Protein backbone atom coordinates (compact mmCIF):
# COMPACT_ATOMS: atom_id res chain seq x y z
CA UNK A 1 0.00 0.00 0.00
CA UNK A 2 1.34 3.35 -0.97
CA UNK A 3 0.58 6.34 1.15
CA UNK A 4 -1.72 8.77 -0.53
CA UNK A 5 0.16 11.69 -1.94
CA UNK A 6 -1.53 15.09 -1.57
CA UNK A 7 -1.29 15.50 -5.33
CA UNK A 8 -3.58 12.57 -5.85
CA UNK A 9 -5.88 13.85 -3.18
CA UNK A 10 -6.22 17.22 -4.84
CA UNK A 11 -7.03 15.68 -8.21
CA UNK A 12 -9.59 13.23 -6.92
CA UNK A 13 -13.18 13.85 -8.00
CA UNK A 14 -15.62 14.40 -5.15
CA UNK A 15 -16.58 11.06 -3.67
CA UNK A 16 -20.34 10.62 -3.78
CA UNK A 17 -20.93 8.15 -0.99
CA UNK A 18 -24.70 8.25 -1.36
CA UNK A 19 -24.43 7.15 -4.97
CA UNK A 20 -22.06 4.43 -3.85
CA UNK A 21 -24.46 3.27 -1.16
CA UNK A 22 -27.22 2.92 -3.71
CA UNK A 23 -25.14 0.17 -5.30
CA UNK A 24 -25.41 -1.98 -2.17
CA UNK A 25 -28.94 -3.34 -1.70
CA UNK A 26 -28.35 -4.50 1.87
CA UNK A 27 -27.45 -1.01 3.05
CA UNK A 28 -31.04 0.17 2.78
CA UNK A 29 -32.11 -2.59 5.12
CA UNK A 30 -33.91 -1.95 8.37
CA UNK A 31 -33.16 -4.34 11.21
CA UNK A 32 -34.93 -5.40 14.40
CA UNK A 33 -38.35 -4.65 13.09
CA UNK A 34 -40.85 -6.14 15.47
CA UNK A 35 -44.62 -6.21 15.56
CA UNK A 36 -45.56 -2.57 15.30
CA UNK A 37 -42.06 -1.24 15.94
CA UNK A 38 -40.30 0.45 13.07
CA UNK A 39 -36.80 -1.00 13.48
CA UNK A 40 -33.47 0.68 12.87
CA UNK A 41 -31.57 1.36 9.68
CA UNK A 42 -28.60 -0.96 9.38
CA UNK A 43 -25.25 0.62 10.19
CA UNK A 44 -22.82 -1.94 8.85
CA UNK A 45 -19.39 -1.49 10.42
CA UNK A 46 -18.24 -5.07 10.07
CA UNK A 47 -16.67 -5.02 6.61
CA UNK A 48 -13.40 -6.17 8.11
CA UNK A 49 -15.08 -9.52 8.69
CA UNK A 50 -16.73 -9.49 5.30
CA UNK A 51 -17.79 -6.73 2.96
CA UNK A 52 -21.22 -6.30 1.45
CA UNK A 53 -21.65 -6.89 -2.28
CA UNK A 54 -22.59 -4.21 -4.78
CA UNK A 55 -25.35 -4.79 -7.30
CA UNK A 56 -22.64 -4.93 -9.98
CA UNK A 57 -21.09 -8.03 -8.42
CA UNK A 58 -24.40 -9.74 -7.79
CA UNK A 59 -25.57 -8.93 -11.32
CA UNK A 60 -22.40 -10.26 -12.90
CA UNK A 61 -22.83 -13.57 -11.09
CA UNK A 62 -26.50 -13.77 -12.01
CA UNK A 63 -25.94 -12.85 -15.62
CA UNK A 64 -23.21 -15.45 -15.89
CA UNK A 65 -25.42 -18.17 -14.40
CA UNK A 66 -28.31 -17.19 -16.64
CA UNK A 67 -26.42 -16.92 -19.88
CA UNK A 68 -22.97 -18.46 -20.00
CA UNK A 69 -22.64 -21.01 -17.27
CA UNK A 70 -20.80 -24.29 -17.89
CA UNK A 71 -17.84 -26.12 -16.50
CA UNK A 72 -14.57 -24.77 -17.79
CA UNK A 73 -11.27 -25.92 -19.29
CA UNK A 74 -12.64 -29.12 -20.70
CA UNK A 75 -15.38 -28.33 -23.15
CA UNK A 76 -15.48 -27.58 -26.87
CA UNK A 77 -19.05 -26.29 -26.76
CA UNK A 78 -19.79 -22.63 -26.82
CA UNK A 79 -20.89 -22.18 -23.21
CA UNK A 80 -17.82 -23.94 -21.90
CA UNK A 81 -15.64 -21.75 -24.09
CA UNK A 82 -17.37 -18.60 -22.96
CA UNK A 83 -17.20 -19.64 -19.32
CA UNK A 84 -13.53 -20.53 -19.64
CA UNK A 85 -12.71 -17.23 -21.30
CA UNK A 86 -14.62 -15.31 -18.65
CA UNK A 87 -13.03 -17.15 -15.75
CA UNK A 88 -9.51 -17.03 -17.16
CA UNK A 89 -10.07 -13.38 -17.97
CA UNK A 90 -10.43 -12.80 -14.25
CA UNK A 91 -6.98 -14.25 -13.76
CA UNK A 92 -5.65 -11.47 -15.99
CA UNK A 93 -7.70 -8.96 -14.06
CA UNK A 94 -6.34 -10.13 -10.71
CA UNK A 95 -2.82 -10.05 -12.10
CA UNK A 96 -3.34 -6.45 -13.17
CA UNK A 97 -4.95 -5.60 -9.83
CA UNK A 98 -1.81 -6.72 -7.98
CA UNK A 99 0.49 -5.65 -10.82
CA UNK A 100 1.72 -9.22 -11.02
CA UNK A 101 4.20 -9.87 -13.82
CA UNK A 102 2.10 -12.59 -15.41
CA UNK A 103 -1.29 -14.29 -15.20
CA UNK A 104 0.51 -17.53 -14.48
CA UNK A 105 1.51 -16.24 -11.05
CA UNK A 106 -2.13 -16.10 -9.91
CA UNK A 107 -3.58 -19.19 -8.22
CA UNK A 108 -7.23 -19.35 -7.22
CA UNK A 109 -8.00 -20.94 -3.85
CA UNK A 110 -11.00 -21.30 -1.55
CA UNK A 111 -10.20 -18.29 0.63
CA UNK A 112 -7.16 -16.53 2.08
CA UNK A 113 -6.81 -19.26 4.68
CA UNK A 114 -6.63 -21.87 1.94
CA UNK A 115 -4.02 -19.82 0.10
CA UNK A 116 -1.74 -19.69 3.13
CA UNK A 117 -2.30 -23.38 3.78
CA UNK A 118 -1.33 -24.02 0.17
CA UNK A 119 2.03 -22.33 0.71
CA UNK A 120 2.58 -24.14 4.01
CA UNK A 121 1.57 -27.53 2.60
CA UNK A 122 3.60 -27.30 -0.61
CA UNK A 123 6.44 -24.82 -0.28
CA UNK A 124 6.67 -25.33 3.47
CA UNK A 125 6.45 -29.07 3.45
CA UNK A 126 8.86 -29.43 0.54
CA UNK A 127 11.53 -26.92 1.45
CA UNK A 128 11.46 -26.43 5.23
CA UNK A 129 13.13 -28.78 7.64
CA UNK A 130 13.31 -29.39 11.37
CA UNK A 131 14.89 -26.38 13.02
CA UNK A 132 14.15 -24.03 10.15
CA UNK A 133 12.50 -20.84 11.30
CA UNK A 134 9.43 -19.01 10.09
CA UNK A 135 9.13 -15.42 11.26
CA UNK A 136 5.68 -13.96 11.78
CA UNK A 137 4.20 -11.29 13.98
CA UNK A 138 2.16 -11.24 17.14
CA UNK A 139 -0.68 -9.56 15.27
CA UNK A 140 -1.27 -12.31 12.71
CA UNK A 141 -4.73 -13.57 11.98
CA UNK A 142 -5.12 -17.24 12.95
CA UNK A 143 -5.06 -17.95 9.21
CA UNK A 144 -1.40 -16.97 9.22
CA UNK A 145 -0.55 -18.79 12.45
CA UNK A 146 -2.23 -22.18 12.50
CA UNK A 147 -0.97 -23.40 9.09
CA UNK A 148 2.58 -22.83 10.36
CA UNK A 149 1.77 -24.54 13.63
CA UNK A 150 0.52 -27.56 11.73
CA UNK A 151 3.83 -27.55 9.86
CA UNK A 152 5.63 -27.12 13.15
CA UNK A 153 3.89 -30.20 14.53
CA UNK A 154 4.70 -32.18 11.40
CA UNK A 155 8.25 -31.10 10.64
CA UNK A 156 9.62 -29.48 13.75
CA UNK A 157 10.06 -26.03 12.29
CA UNK A 158 10.37 -23.14 14.73
CA UNK A 159 8.11 -20.09 14.84
CA UNK A 160 9.61 -16.72 15.73
CA UNK A 161 7.26 -13.95 16.69
CA UNK A 162 7.88 -10.25 16.09
CA UNK A 163 6.30 -8.10 18.79
CA UNK A 164 4.41 -4.82 18.43
CA UNK A 165 4.65 -1.77 20.64
CA UNK A 166 1.74 -0.34 22.61
CA UNK A 167 0.49 1.54 19.57
CA UNK A 168 0.49 -1.67 17.58
CA UNK A 169 3.52 -0.73 15.51
CA UNK A 170 5.63 -3.66 14.37
CA UNK A 171 9.00 -3.71 16.11
CA UNK A 172 11.32 -3.56 13.12
CA UNK A 173 14.46 -3.85 15.21
CA UNK A 174 13.18 -7.04 16.72
CA UNK A 175 12.22 -8.19 13.26
CA UNK A 176 15.69 -7.57 11.87
CA UNK A 177 17.23 -9.30 14.87
CA UNK A 178 15.03 -12.38 14.39
CA UNK A 179 16.17 -12.89 10.82
CA UNK A 180 18.92 -15.43 11.11
CA UNK A 181 20.70 -18.19 9.25
CA UNK A 182 17.88 -20.63 10.00
CA UNK A 183 15.12 -18.27 8.87
CA UNK A 184 13.54 -19.85 5.81
CA UNK A 185 10.41 -17.78 5.46
CA UNK A 186 8.79 -14.62 6.69
CA UNK A 187 4.98 -14.79 6.89
CA UNK A 188 3.55 -11.47 7.89
CA UNK A 189 0.35 -9.52 7.74
CA UNK A 190 0.30 -6.51 5.45
CA UNK A 191 -2.47 -4.98 7.53
CA UNK A 192 -3.75 -6.10 10.91
CA UNK A 193 -7.45 -6.92 10.99
CA UNK A 194 -7.59 -5.85 14.64
CA UNK A 195 -5.29 -2.87 14.97
CA UNK A 196 -5.47 -1.52 11.45
CA UNK A 197 -1.68 -1.35 11.52
CA UNK A 198 -0.20 -1.30 8.03
CA UNK A 199 3.14 -3.03 8.17
CA UNK A 200 6.15 -1.56 6.32
CA UNK A 201 5.98 -4.21 3.64
CA UNK A 202 8.79 -2.97 1.43
CA UNK A 203 11.16 -2.79 4.32
CA UNK A 204 10.06 -6.18 5.59
CA UNK A 205 10.74 -7.68 2.20
CA UNK A 206 14.00 -5.82 1.69
CA UNK A 207 15.49 -6.94 4.99
CA UNK A 208 14.52 -10.51 4.28
CA UNK A 209 15.73 -10.47 0.69
CA UNK A 210 19.09 -9.18 1.75
CA UNK A 211 19.39 -12.49 3.55
CA UNK A 212 17.84 -14.49 0.73
CA UNK A 213 14.67 -15.19 2.72
CA UNK A 214 11.34 -15.33 0.90
CA UNK A 215 8.38 -13.37 2.25
CA UNK A 216 4.68 -14.10 2.31
CA UNK A 217 2.37 -11.19 2.97
CA UNK A 218 -1.20 -11.69 4.14
CA UNK A 219 -2.98 -8.95 2.23
CA UNK A 220 -6.52 -9.91 3.21
CA UNK A 221 -7.12 -6.49 4.77
CA UNK A 222 -4.47 -4.55 2.85
CA UNK A 223 -5.91 -4.93 -0.66
CA UNK A 224 -9.17 -3.55 0.59
CA UNK A 225 -7.75 -0.34 1.97
CA UNK A 226 -5.06 0.58 -0.53
CA UNK A 227 -3.15 -0.09 -3.68
CA UNK A 228 -0.86 -3.11 -3.78
CA UNK A 229 1.97 -3.69 -6.24
CA UNK A 230 3.59 -7.07 -5.77
CA UNK A 231 6.45 -6.26 -8.13
CA UNK A 232 7.21 -3.01 -6.42
CA UNK A 233 7.12 -4.83 -3.07
CA UNK A 234 9.22 -7.62 -4.60
CA UNK A 235 7.25 -9.98 -2.38
CA UNK A 236 7.37 -13.74 -2.95
CA UNK A 237 3.84 -14.70 -1.91
CA UNK A 238 0.82 -12.46 -1.55
CA UNK A 239 -2.58 -13.61 -0.37
CA UNK A 240 -6.06 -12.14 -0.24
CA UNK A 241 -9.70 -13.21 -0.07
CA UNK A 242 -12.49 -12.13 -2.42
CA UNK A 243 -15.28 -11.68 0.11
CA UNK A 244 -13.56 -8.82 1.91
CA UNK A 245 -13.03 -7.01 -1.40
CA UNK A 246 -16.78 -6.70 -2.08
CA UNK A 247 -16.62 -9.99 -3.95
CA UNK A 248 -18.13 -13.43 -3.39
CA UNK A 249 -17.43 -15.99 -0.70
CA UNK A 250 -15.66 -19.21 -1.63
CA UNK A 251 -12.69 -17.67 -3.44
CA UNK A 252 -9.21 -16.66 -2.41
CA UNK A 253 -6.11 -15.62 -4.32
CA UNK A 254 -2.48 -16.57 -4.04
CA UNK A 255 0.09 -14.61 -5.97
CA UNK A 256 3.52 -16.26 -6.02
CA UNK A 257 6.67 -15.64 -7.97
CA UNK A 258 6.71 -18.08 -10.82
CA UNK A 259 10.11 -19.42 -9.82
CA UNK A 260 8.53 -20.64 -6.58
CA UNK A 261 5.38 -22.02 -8.17
CA UNK A 262 7.50 -23.89 -10.65
CA UNK A 263 9.30 -25.76 -7.86
CA UNK A 264 6.32 -26.35 -5.60
CA UNK A 265 4.75 -29.83 -5.53
CA UNK A 266 1.00 -30.16 -6.03
CA UNK A 267 -1.43 -29.21 -3.26
CA UNK A 268 -4.59 -31.16 -3.85
CA UNK A 269 -4.88 -33.91 -6.44
CA UNK A 270 -7.69 -34.30 -8.95
CA UNK A 271 -9.01 -33.19 -12.29
CA UNK A 272 -7.71 -30.13 -14.11
CA UNK A 273 -4.31 -30.12 -12.37
CA UNK A 274 -2.95 -33.16 -14.15
CA UNK A 275 -1.17 -33.55 -17.42
CA UNK A 276 -1.68 -37.28 -17.67
CA UNK A 277 -3.02 -39.89 -15.23
CA UNK A 278 -2.27 -43.56 -15.10
CA UNK A 279 -1.79 -46.02 -12.30
CA UNK A 280 1.81 -46.39 -13.34
CA UNK A 281 2.51 -42.69 -13.00
CA UNK A 282 0.78 -39.35 -13.14
CA UNK A 283 2.20 -36.05 -14.33
CA UNK A 284 1.04 -32.59 -13.37
CA UNK A 285 0.34 -29.41 -15.26
CA UNK A 286 2.44 -26.31 -15.09
CA UNK A 287 1.48 -23.58 -12.60
CA UNK A 288 -0.98 -22.13 -11.88
CA UNK A 289 -3.15 -25.06 -12.99
CA UNK A 290 -1.10 -27.52 -10.95
CA UNK A 291 -2.55 -25.96 -7.82
CA UNK A 292 -6.19 -25.84 -8.85
CA UNK A 293 -7.73 -29.29 -8.51
CA UNK A 294 -11.28 -30.00 -9.58
CA UNK A 295 -13.96 -27.59 -10.61
CA UNK A 296 -12.92 -24.15 -9.37
CA UNK A 297 -15.24 -21.51 -7.92
CA UNK A 298 -16.24 -20.42 -11.42
CA UNK A 299 -19.17 -18.15 -10.69
CA UNK A 300 -17.23 -16.70 -7.76
CA UNK A 301 -14.39 -15.86 -10.13
CA UNK A 302 -16.80 -13.87 -12.27
CA UNK A 303 -17.95 -12.08 -9.14
CA UNK A 304 -14.40 -11.21 -8.14
CA UNK A 305 -13.77 -9.81 -11.59
CA UNK A 306 -16.79 -7.53 -11.18
CA UNK A 307 -15.64 -6.52 -7.69
CA UNK A 308 -12.24 -5.51 -8.99
CA UNK A 309 -13.89 -3.53 -11.77
CA UNK A 310 -16.05 -1.87 -9.16
CA UNK A 311 -13.26 -0.67 -6.90
CA UNK A 312 -11.11 0.34 -9.87
CA UNK A 313 -13.99 2.40 -11.27
CA UNK A 314 -14.47 4.20 -7.98
CA UNK A 315 -10.75 4.68 -7.79
CA UNK A 316 -8.62 3.04 -5.16
CA UNK A 317 -7.09 6.31 -4.09
CA UNK A 318 -10.50 7.92 -3.80
CA UNK A 319 -11.68 5.02 -1.68
CA UNK A 320 -8.60 5.25 0.54
CA UNK A 321 -9.17 8.96 0.98
CA UNK A 322 -12.79 8.45 1.92
CA UNK A 323 -11.95 5.75 4.42
CA UNK A 324 -9.20 7.88 5.83
CA UNK A 325 -11.67 10.63 6.54
CA UNK A 326 -13.98 8.19 8.30
CA UNK A 327 -11.10 6.83 10.32
CA UNK A 328 -10.03 10.26 11.48
CA UNK A 329 -13.53 11.35 12.29
CA UNK A 330 -14.36 8.13 14.14
CA UNK A 331 -11.10 8.20 16.09
CA UNK A 332 -11.78 11.75 17.16
CA UNK A 333 -15.42 11.12 18.13
CA UNK A 334 -14.81 7.86 19.94
CA UNK A 335 -11.89 9.33 21.84
CA UNK A 336 -14.26 11.72 23.52
CA UNK A 337 -16.06 8.89 25.27
CA UNK A 338 -14.87 8.40 28.83
CA UNK A 339 -13.40 5.03 29.50
CA UNK A 340 -13.14 4.14 25.81
CA UNK A 341 -9.72 2.85 24.86
CA UNK A 342 -8.65 2.42 21.28
CA UNK A 343 -6.39 -0.58 20.74
CA UNK A 344 -4.17 0.13 17.78
CA UNK A 345 -2.95 3.66 17.20
CA UNK A 346 -0.17 3.18 14.68
CA UNK A 347 0.47 6.06 12.31
CA UNK A 348 -0.87 5.50 8.82
CA UNK A 349 -3.26 2.78 9.94
CA UNK A 350 -6.18 1.51 7.90
CA UNK A 351 -9.81 2.27 8.69
CA UNK A 352 -10.25 -0.28 11.44
CA UNK A 353 -10.86 0.70 15.06
CA UNK A 354 -10.75 -1.80 17.88
CA UNK A 355 -11.76 -0.53 21.26
CA UNK A 356 -12.80 -1.44 24.77
CA UNK A 357 -15.09 0.41 27.14
CA UNK A 358 -14.34 0.32 30.81
CA UNK A 359 -16.85 -1.62 32.82
CA UNK A 360 -18.55 -3.14 29.79
CA UNK A 361 -17.57 -6.43 28.25
CA UNK A 362 -17.30 -6.15 24.43
CA UNK A 363 -19.79 -8.93 24.04
CA UNK A 364 -22.43 -7.01 25.97
CA UNK A 365 -21.55 -3.90 24.03
CA UNK A 366 -22.05 -5.76 20.77
CA UNK A 367 -25.47 -6.98 21.78
CA UNK A 368 -26.64 -3.54 22.84
CA UNK A 369 -25.35 -1.56 19.86
CA UNK A 370 -26.86 -4.21 17.61
CA UNK A 371 -30.24 -3.23 19.00
CA UNK A 372 -29.47 0.23 17.65
CA UNK A 373 -28.82 -1.28 14.23
CA UNK A 374 -25.07 -0.92 14.58
CA UNK A 375 -23.16 -3.99 13.43
CA UNK A 376 -19.68 -4.19 14.92
CA UNK A 377 -17.63 -7.29 15.53
CA UNK A 378 -16.78 -8.25 19.11
CA UNK A 379 -14.42 -10.94 20.27
CA UNK A 380 -10.88 -11.99 19.53
CA UNK A 381 -11.10 -11.37 15.78
CA UNK A 382 -9.17 -14.58 15.13
CA UNK A 383 -6.12 -12.99 16.71
CA UNK A 384 -5.91 -14.53 20.16
CA UNK A 385 -2.15 -14.01 20.64
CA UNK A 386 -2.64 -10.30 19.97
CA UNK A 387 -5.40 -10.14 22.58
CA UNK A 388 -3.03 -11.74 25.06
CA UNK A 389 -0.35 -9.20 24.10
CA UNK A 390 -2.68 -6.35 25.04
CA UNK A 391 -3.89 -8.19 28.12
CA UNK A 392 -7.48 -8.22 27.00
CA UNK A 393 -9.88 -11.03 26.26
CA UNK A 394 -11.59 -9.31 23.42
CA UNK A 395 -12.45 -5.99 21.81
CA UNK A 396 -15.22 -4.38 19.87
CA UNK A 397 -14.16 -3.51 16.33
CA UNK A 398 -15.64 -1.06 13.89
CA UNK A 399 -14.26 -1.44 10.39
CA UNK A 400 -15.03 1.08 7.69
CA UNK A 401 -15.58 0.46 4.00
CA UNK A 402 -16.10 2.48 0.86
CA UNK A 403 -19.83 2.76 1.59
CA UNK A 404 -19.74 4.06 5.16
CA UNK A 405 -20.56 7.61 6.16
CA UNK A 406 -19.83 10.11 8.89
CA UNK A 407 -23.48 9.79 9.92
CA UNK A 408 -22.82 6.13 10.57
CA UNK A 409 -19.86 7.05 12.73
CA UNK A 410 -22.24 9.26 14.69
CA UNK A 411 -24.66 6.36 15.04
CA UNK A 412 -21.83 4.21 16.37
CA UNK A 413 -20.80 6.86 18.88
CA UNK A 414 -24.38 7.40 20.03
CA UNK A 415 -24.91 3.70 20.48
CA UNK A 416 -21.72 3.32 22.51
CA UNK A 417 -22.87 6.17 24.75
CA UNK A 418 -26.18 4.37 25.16
CA UNK A 419 -24.28 1.23 26.14
CA UNK A 420 -22.46 3.09 28.85
CA UNK A 421 -25.68 4.48 30.16
CA UNK A 422 -27.36 1.10 30.03
CA UNK A 423 -24.66 -0.56 32.07
CA UNK A 424 -24.06 2.48 34.26
CA UNK A 425 -20.43 2.38 33.21
Amino acid at each position, binding site marked *: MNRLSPAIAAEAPPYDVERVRADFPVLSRVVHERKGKPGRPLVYLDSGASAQKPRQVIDAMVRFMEEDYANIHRGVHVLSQRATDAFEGVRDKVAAFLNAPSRDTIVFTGNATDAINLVAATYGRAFLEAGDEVVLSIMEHHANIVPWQLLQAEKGIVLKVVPVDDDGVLDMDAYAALLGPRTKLVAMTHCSNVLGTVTPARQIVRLARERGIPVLLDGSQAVVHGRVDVQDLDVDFYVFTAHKLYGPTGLGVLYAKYEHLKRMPPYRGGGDMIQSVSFSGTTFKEPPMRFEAGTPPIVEGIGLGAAIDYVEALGRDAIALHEHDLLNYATQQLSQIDGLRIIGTAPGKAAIISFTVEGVHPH*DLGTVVDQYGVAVRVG*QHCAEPLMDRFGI*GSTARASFALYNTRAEVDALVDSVRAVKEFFGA
Partner: protein
Amino acid sequence: MMDELRELYQEVILDHGKNPRNLRHPADANREARGENPMCGDKFTVYLTVNDAGLVEDCAFEGRGCAISTASASMMTELVRGKTQDEARTLFHTFHDLCTKDEEHHHDHGPVDEDTMEKLMVLSGVRQFPVRVKCATLAWHAMNAAIAGEAKASSE
Protein backbone atom coordinates in the same frame (compact mmCIF):
# COMPACT_ATOMS: atom_id res chain seq x y z
CA MET B 1 -36.12 -2.49 21.32
CA MET B 2 -34.99 -1.62 24.78
CA ASP B 3 -37.69 -3.96 26.10
CA GLU B 4 -35.83 -6.96 24.75
CA LEU B 5 -32.59 -5.66 26.21
CA ARG B 6 -34.21 -5.17 29.60
CA GLU B 7 -35.56 -8.68 29.32
CA LEU B 8 -32.05 -9.98 28.78
CA TYR B 9 -30.24 -7.74 31.19
CA GLN B 10 -32.60 -7.81 34.16
CA GLU B 11 -31.47 -6.00 37.29
CA VAL B 12 -30.46 -9.20 39.00
CA ILE B 13 -28.25 -10.09 36.07
CA LEU B 14 -26.61 -6.69 35.94
CA ASP B 15 -26.02 -7.02 39.66
CA HIS B 16 -24.51 -10.51 39.51
CA GLY B 17 -22.55 -9.47 36.42
CA LYS B 18 -20.94 -6.60 38.27
CA ASN B 19 -20.63 -8.26 41.65
CA PRO B 20 -20.25 -11.94 41.06
CA ARG B 21 -20.73 -14.19 44.09
CA ASN B 22 -18.42 -17.05 44.90
CA LEU B 23 -15.65 -15.78 42.67
CA ARG B 24 -12.90 -17.75 44.34
CA HIS B 25 -10.99 -21.01 44.37
CA PRO B 26 -12.07 -23.05 47.41
CA ALA B 27 -9.13 -24.83 49.02
CA ASP B 28 -11.17 -27.99 49.57
CA ALA B 29 -12.62 -28.21 46.07
CA ASN B 30 -12.40 -31.78 44.78
CA ARG B 31 -13.87 -31.29 41.32
CA GLU B 32 -13.16 -28.68 38.72
CA ALA B 33 -13.63 -28.14 35.02
CA ARG B 34 -12.86 -25.42 32.50
CA GLY B 35 -15.18 -23.94 29.93
CA GLU B 36 -14.26 -21.55 27.19
CA ASN B 37 -16.04 -19.71 24.43
CA PRO B 38 -13.71 -19.34 21.46
CA MET B 39 -15.88 -16.64 19.95
CA CYS B 40 -15.37 -14.09 22.68
CA GLY B 41 -12.43 -15.53 24.55
CA ASP B 42 -14.30 -15.96 27.80
CA LYS B 43 -12.89 -18.63 30.08
CA PHE B 44 -14.23 -19.97 33.37
CA THR B 45 -13.14 -22.60 35.82
CA VAL B 46 -15.85 -24.03 38.01
CA TYR B 47 -14.96 -25.64 41.37
CA LEU B 48 -17.11 -28.05 43.31
CA THR B 49 -16.71 -29.52 46.76
CA VAL B 50 -18.68 -32.73 46.74
CA ASN B 51 -18.93 -34.78 49.92
CA ASP B 52 -19.11 -38.55 50.22
CA ALA B 53 -22.86 -38.47 50.22
CA GLY B 54 -22.79 -36.76 46.83
CA LEU B 55 -23.86 -33.39 48.18
CA VAL B 56 -22.38 -30.25 46.62
CA GLU B 57 -21.13 -28.49 49.71
CA ASP B 58 -19.51 -25.65 47.87
CA CYS B 59 -19.56 -24.26 44.37
CA ALA B 60 -17.39 -21.40 43.14
CA PHE B 61 -15.74 -20.14 39.99
CA GLU B 62 -12.85 -18.16 38.61
CA GLY B 63 -12.46 -16.27 35.36
CA ARG B 64 -14.39 -13.44 33.91
CA GLY B 65 -16.57 -12.92 30.92
CA CYS B 66 -19.42 -10.79 29.73
CA ALA B 67 -22.27 -9.74 31.99
CA ILE B 68 -24.38 -12.68 30.89
CA SER B 69 -21.80 -15.38 31.42
CA THR B 70 -20.56 -13.90 34.67
CA ALA B 71 -24.03 -13.44 36.09
CA SER B 72 -25.00 -16.91 35.01
CA ALA B 73 -21.92 -18.40 36.67
CA SER B 74 -22.52 -16.42 39.81
CA MET B 75 -26.18 -17.32 40.10
CA MET B 76 -25.37 -20.92 39.31
CA THR B 77 -22.97 -21.20 42.22
CA GLU B 78 -25.74 -20.11 44.55
CA LEU B 79 -28.28 -22.45 43.03
CA VAL B 80 -26.10 -25.54 42.99
CA ARG B 81 -24.74 -25.23 46.46
CA GLY B 82 -26.49 -27.59 48.84
CA LYS B 83 -27.94 -29.68 46.05
CA THR B 84 -27.04 -33.29 45.39
CA GLN B 85 -25.05 -34.08 42.26
CA ASP B 86 -28.17 -35.49 40.67
CA GLU B 87 -30.10 -32.36 41.45
CA ALA B 88 -27.31 -30.24 40.02
CA ARG B 89 -27.42 -32.24 36.84
CA THR B 90 -31.16 -31.77 36.70
CA LEU B 91 -30.66 -28.03 37.00
CA PHE B 92 -28.16 -28.06 34.16
CA HIS B 93 -30.41 -29.94 31.79
CA THR B 94 -33.48 -27.95 32.74
CA PHE B 95 -31.63 -24.71 32.22
CA HIS B 96 -30.17 -25.92 28.93
CA ASP B 97 -33.64 -26.68 27.65
CA LEU B 98 -34.88 -23.28 28.76
CA CYS B 99 -32.12 -21.54 26.83
CA THR B 100 -32.16 -23.58 23.66
CA LYS B 101 -35.56 -25.12 23.07
CA ASP B 102 -39.12 -24.06 22.50
CA GLU B 103 -41.35 -24.87 25.43
CA GLU B 104 -43.01 -27.85 23.75
CA HIS B 105 -39.58 -29.47 23.48
CA HIS B 106 -38.61 -29.14 27.13
CA HIS B 107 -38.00 -32.46 28.81
CA ASP B 108 -38.68 -33.32 32.40
CA HIS B 109 -35.20 -33.78 33.81
CA GLY B 110 -36.39 -34.03 37.42
CA PRO B 111 -37.99 -31.73 39.98
CA VAL B 112 -36.85 -28.11 40.33
CA ASP B 113 -38.23 -25.99 43.14
CA GLU B 114 -40.18 -22.86 42.32
CA ASP B 115 -37.68 -20.33 43.59
CA THR B 116 -34.85 -21.90 41.60
CA MET B 117 -37.04 -22.14 38.53
CA GLU B 118 -37.74 -18.43 38.75
CA LYS B 119 -34.05 -17.65 38.71
CA LEU B 120 -33.45 -19.97 35.80
CA MET B 121 -36.23 -18.20 33.94
CA VAL B 122 -34.52 -14.87 34.46
CA LEU B 123 -31.29 -16.21 32.99
CA SER B 124 -33.08 -17.79 30.10
CA GLY B 125 -34.09 -14.38 28.71
CA VAL B 126 -31.07 -15.11 26.55
CA ARG B 127 -33.25 -17.37 24.44
CA GLN B 128 -34.27 -14.28 22.46
CA PHE B 129 -30.57 -13.70 21.70
CA PRO B 130 -29.44 -17.04 20.31
CA VAL B 131 -25.87 -15.90 19.87
CA ARG B 132 -25.64 -15.25 23.60
CA VAL B 133 -26.87 -18.67 24.66
CA LYS B 134 -23.31 -19.94 24.84
CA CYS B 135 -22.50 -17.14 27.28
CA ALA B 136 -25.36 -18.08 29.56
CA THR B 137 -24.59 -21.79 29.52
CA LEU B 138 -20.78 -21.63 29.60
CA ALA B 139 -20.28 -22.07 33.36
CA TRP B 140 -23.13 -24.57 33.49
CA HIS B 141 -21.43 -26.79 30.97
CA ALA B 142 -18.27 -26.62 33.06
CA MET B 143 -20.20 -27.47 36.22
CA ASN B 144 -21.81 -30.42 34.51
CA ALA B 145 -18.42 -31.57 33.24
CA ALA B 146 -16.94 -31.26 36.75
CA ILE B 147 -19.67 -33.48 38.14
CA ALA B 148 -19.01 -36.01 35.41
CA GLY B 149 -15.34 -35.91 36.35
CA GLU B 150 -14.16 -34.29 33.12
CA ALA B 151 -11.56 -31.54 33.07
CA LYS B 152 -13.15 -29.62 30.26
CA ALA B 153 -16.64 -28.81 29.17
CA SER B 154 -17.15 -30.67 25.92
CA SER B 155 -19.82 -28.53 24.43
CA GLU B 156 -19.20 -25.08 23.14
